[in-house]
């Protein structure tokens, strides 16, 4: 074979191999690492298994934050103004977590209406509303 052609074939094989590697990785990574976002209402009508990591969110209901006095456990309710979801979490909350503010939590649905959060997501800006939550509240109005 002519050396230039051979060289082109090698380059082509490398490009193909690289692209296949990438596509394979992307597909396999996406199949495992996607976190769907649910509103409390969505979760009410959903038969999710309790070992699927999901995101949920809404507005933290006023007066719903209950702290334990001697441990890091905390419980609060998020609402989309149609339905509520009770969130249980253990750990330190982000600075911008407060009543009547939007929040996104990542974790597992335990039983109807209760959610075990492994992470409460923080944002830089106090005025910032996670788009998922903003959209939820918009739909409500």
């Amino acid at each position, binding site marked *: 074979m002519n050396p230039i052609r051979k060289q082109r074939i*090698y380059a082509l094989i490398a*490009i193909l191999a690289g692209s296949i590697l990438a596509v394979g990785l*992307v597909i396999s990574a996406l199949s495992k*690492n*996607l*976190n769907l*976002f649910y509103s409390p209402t969505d979760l009410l009508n959903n038969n999710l298994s309790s070992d699927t990591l999901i995101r949920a969110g809404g507005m933290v209901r006023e007066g719903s934050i209950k702290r334990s006095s*001697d441990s890091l456990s905390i419980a609060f309710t998020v609402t989309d103004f149609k339905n509520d979801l009770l969130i249980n979490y253990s750990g*330190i909350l982000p600075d911008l977590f407060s009543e009547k503010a939007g929040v996104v939590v990542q974790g597992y649905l335990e039983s109807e209406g209760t959610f075990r959060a492994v992470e409460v997501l923080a944002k830089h800006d106090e005025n910032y509303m*996670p788009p998922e939550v903003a959209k939820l509240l918009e739909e409500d109005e």
Partner: protein
Amino acid sequence: MIPEIGHILLVIALVLSFVGGLGAFALKRELPVLKISFILNLLLIGSFFALIYSFVIDDFSVAYVAQNSNTNLPIYYKFAATWGAHEGSLILWILSMNIWLLTFIFFDNSKNTNFSNYVFGVCCLVIFSFLLFTIFTSNPFERILPIPPINGADLNPSLQDFAFTVHPPLLYFGYSGLLIPFAISISAMLSGQPNKDWASSSRPWTLLACSFLTIGIGLGSWWAYYELGWGGWWFWDPVENAAFVPWLLAVALVHSLLVTENRNIFINWSLLLSIFAFAASLLGTFLVRSGILTSVHAFALDPERGLFILGIFSFFVLGGLVIFAFKNSTNNVASFYSLNSKEFGLLLNNLLLVVLAVSILFGTLYPLIYEAFTDGKQISVGAPYFEFIIFPFAILLGLLQGIALYISWGSTKSFSFIGKLIVEAISISLLTLVLLFILFDELISASFFAIFIFAWILAGSLMINFSFKSFANYLDFVNRRIGVMLSHIGMALLVLGIGVVSSYSSEKELIIKPGEKVEFLNKDIELLAIKDVQGPNFISKTAEIKVSDDKRVFNIQSEKRTYFPSGQVTTEAGIDTGLFRDFYVSMGDNFKEDSWSFRLQSKPFIRWIWLGALLITLGTFISSINLIRKQ
């Protein structure tokens, strides 16, 4: 009056850049490009200073100042607040594009008038479009009349910090630096500049852009680490990815230009990659400023601005691709290279970097794609996706990087270095493991890959076993390649830092009250007191913590600040920094009386990440300066 002058200067710059841009394409003769760039620069600097002035004198009739400053803000931050939000940072961005243009024109010694004119023209048109965008959708000089507010809303407290004041300018400088290779690529196609010439004009500027991008991203990561109070150094946030993707493409371009300049091949690839690198930097701007993606970097959520930037993006990128379609180089000199050549190695390097960049971009944009195809279902792609993707690429790139300096153009005569390289890499790996064992009393297998790749790149970059006649020869060799050696060693340190910090970190959350003692990683930790501290524009609860182990005793202060007037609360982590381990304490919430929750973290080798980034910055900077001096 001053804000109006700033505004007028912007308008004059708009007209001048438009005239300059058109003139460069219409007039086929020598133009005073240096003079025009210089005047443009003066106009933009004038406008920028007008904005700084408005901040410094607290002119709250200017809406942008009122939104981002306050009389209580320390003067240094008033100054830095100029680029603290969308409008002001745009001015800085445009100014930095212009500084690139001016520097390029100043050092340009091309004999081909058309080539220089077109580079100038493309830059002017890009600057024009950004000025248009600024003046019509994001004018920082807009007034609140007739009744200006008495005081401003304040700068976001997380941004009141040293690293923040230098991170954006450096990052913008890196982003906007990719304008030069783009303009060179377009100009080379239009003017028919010989490949070797345009590639050697482009390479130093691409390296320099890379250098600024690296330090900008590095500072951002450092800032997030100590300022956000969580101890993370990279979050795979869309905005971080928006900077990482152009970085990957710029690094790929640096390597492909090397081949184009030396071997007169990969010509169309380098032309195309120059367009894509610039496109990625524009796309980054679009993502950050349109608010279409969930991000911690909440800039301006304004769809109109998003559309405008999308317009600029489409015009230049599609325009560039159309020119490429018609004017690409058909002058493909058949140059032979074999599978064991530097050319093929660099081809793999480019392939891996570009495919990685595309995969990261895909993950970043996937929530949008998903939402569009599933009728509004919301989704997020988290860190595990990106970590999973980057891992194999990092290993392959690292393996290539280790042999990068040994292989030769055309074909590598002997691969006898491989055996020695393996021995060296294994020795360095073992030494590193011993060090880790001494430091932390355990070996964690998750870090082994990273340690080997670190050792492999380090051994390969030092080139100890390469046959040198004498030590003087080696020094001479190092002297000629100091830039590439430093940046590759920087990459090695970065890999080690990431590998160790992600496997050896540990943390503990607890509640303690003053006088109480707890144990964490063989250290006694005592909360001495919680004090009330009054700052210039905040009040804080400051925890005084004493840490003691068998070697030393030190104090750490961790704070919970409440800034006024916004009332925003921030956590100021207390950090005991060390080359081998950071000890990181962040304060949580107040429980009954004086007891507080705390998060204690140990972050081994985290400094190596930024040390690596610093070396890459330095290495690319030196390479670039050497090339500019040679021209």
